[in-house]
């Protein structure tokens, strides 16, 4: 077990390292921050001074080496816009993002999983078709369309909820619903097919033949097995808690990581973009490890090989 964990952690670190490296080079090759942050008609000597002060005049591999060395000591660089440490800027936004992604995550599970189970148990019924119709609509519709639709109905027409900003609880409702709806739709569809797959297995019929009531067959024999594939998709959703709200945060002007990322990319605020990508890579990788561990816990076949 220890060996396995060590191996997984090593792979995780490698993944993070690759993401960071890739981001570093792509960002530097795709635009000059000096020209974006200073105005284009700034005197050449001040641009040169800017470059020198941020180390942009060095060869790119020197810059990279310096970045890695600093990052390893915990220094992820400063924002080119306001000079504050990038890590500080990013971490400030985390609670704000989690304030909408965590409730949305709960909403996805609370709606998606039961809806999927229900649809599977009532396969081909009207209720099943209706659920799947909503599900298809939910995950084919781009989130900004749903966001605008919700704004149109609840803010413009009914005037019940604010359309943007972050002044209070009411502001969070529409972003949460937008995020939650799409995730719930995906989860419902996934849970349904996982459940159908399990219900078709011989051990389900064998459990009925044993004399168990249908309710017990479903809850004690079908659900634990259907949970195995469903866990994967839920784990993936955990990975998107930090960075999955870029579009929604932009539409609702919610001051989270997503909006920070959009602004930082537009400005080529290198240190900030890299810090966000590092954070995203870390959450993704962590959630993957957690999913694997949970997998081993609920599926005994992953724990041991046949004797």
């Amino acid at each position, binding site marked *: *077990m220890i060996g*396995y964990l060590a*191996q997984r952690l090593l792979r995780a670190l490698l993944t993070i390292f690759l993401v960071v490296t890739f981001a570093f080079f792509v960002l530097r090759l795709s635009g000059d921050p000096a020209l974006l942050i200073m105005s284009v008609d700034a005197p050449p000597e001040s641009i040169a001074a800017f470059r020198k002060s941020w180390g942009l005049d060095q060869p790119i591999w020197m810059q990279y080496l310096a970045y890695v060395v600093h990052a390893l000591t915990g220094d992820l660089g400063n924002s080119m816009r306001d000079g504050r440490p990038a890590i500080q800027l990013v971490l400030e936004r985390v609670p704000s993002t989690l304030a909408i992604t965590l409730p949305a995550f709960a909403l996805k599970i609370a709606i998606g999983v039961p809806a999927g189970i229900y649809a599977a148990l009532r396969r081909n019924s009207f209720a099943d078709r209706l659920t799947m119709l909503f599900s298809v609509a939910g995950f084919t519709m781009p989130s900004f369309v749903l966001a605008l639709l919700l704004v149109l109905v609840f803010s413009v027409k009914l005037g019940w909820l604010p359309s943007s900003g972050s002044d209070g609880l009411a502001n969070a409702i529409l972003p949460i619903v937008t995020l939650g709806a799409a995730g719930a739709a995906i989860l419902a569809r996934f849970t349904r097919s996982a459940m159908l797959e399990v219900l078709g297995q011989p051990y389900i019929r064998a459990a009925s033949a044993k004399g168990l009531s249908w309710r017990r067959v479903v809850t004690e024999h079908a659900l634990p097995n259907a949970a195995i594939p469903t866990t994967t998709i839920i784990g993936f959703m955990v990975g998107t808690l930090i960075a999955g709200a870029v579009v929604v945060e932009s539409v609702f002007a919610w001051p989270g990581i997503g909006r920070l990322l959009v602004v930082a990319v537009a400005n080529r605020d290198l240190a900030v973009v890299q810090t966000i990508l590092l954070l995203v890579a870390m959450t993704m990788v962590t959630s993957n490890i957690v999913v694997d561990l949970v997998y081993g816990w609920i599926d005994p076949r*992953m724990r*041991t*090989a046949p004797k």
Partner: protein
Amino acid sequence: MSQPLLEASQLTRHYKVRRGGRLFGHAATLRAVDGVSFTLRPGRTLGLVGESGCGKTTTARLVLGLLPLTSGEMRLDGETLPKAGSTRWRELRRTVQMVYQDPLAALDRRIAVGRQVMEPLAIHGIGTSTVERRDKAMAILESVGLQAHHFVRYPHELSGGQRQRIVLARALILEPRLLVCDEPISALDVSIQAQVVNLLLDLQAKMGLAYLFISHDLRMVRQVSHEVAVMYLGRIVERGDPDRLFSAPTHPYTQALVSAIPVAARQRRQRLILKGDPPNPVNVPTGCAFHERCPIAVAHCRAETPLLRPLADGREVACHLAAASVGGL
């Protein structure tokens, strides 16, 4: 006797596996096929029997060149089979074709079966025009007992037996000389099995095909084979004439296998029932691989691996005790 078509000598296929769980096991060797030799002549059938994991399907895949050999050699018409993928290999390979267990899985369900029968011709660049290829496909369909109107059907429109005939037609269109049949009738209903077996025998008589016939159904193997080889854990343990082998098996494993066959008559016999399951091929017991389940094993069996030795009646058996009891050479 005619020249051998296929000579397989000491075919070996080992796999590196990890033991002790998925996570942090140590490397081990799985001996799927461990030194199997046989000769096949034109118009003859070698039946390969044994339980799952005994290596009969791996042997088939080795013969077809679908798996590389770990060691050993194969000769077709006396010519050593060159490295897989070379031009000469491809030419030789054409003379060996395969009939699968599950015809539905072996066919593409979106393509009319006639086109699937023609396809190998195009792949090997045989025949100049589509018309020529179509004529050839029609002729083959007829020879496997199908009619022209089946040409445009799709696999799901045909019955299991008809699908197996299509698979057979597709293999035969390249005019192979050896057909490897891996459980060709196991997926078929009882009343259809006889149809397909009779067809295989007729085709053999007409075209002089050689068959490597793999099945767990000993009765069917006896029906089609000129020679039978019994495999246990990657090795041949007994080989010989099917009538003699099944009426008086000498290897204790063959005896158990024969005795396990339920006979469709009321003559209930005393049955020899083996204890336990076949061991894992990663963990083959020392000496004779069968000794742990063998009812007559002695200490010597644990120490030394018995080799295939000829008996007086021309059979070969790999058992220290059987050779002695029958008075082997």
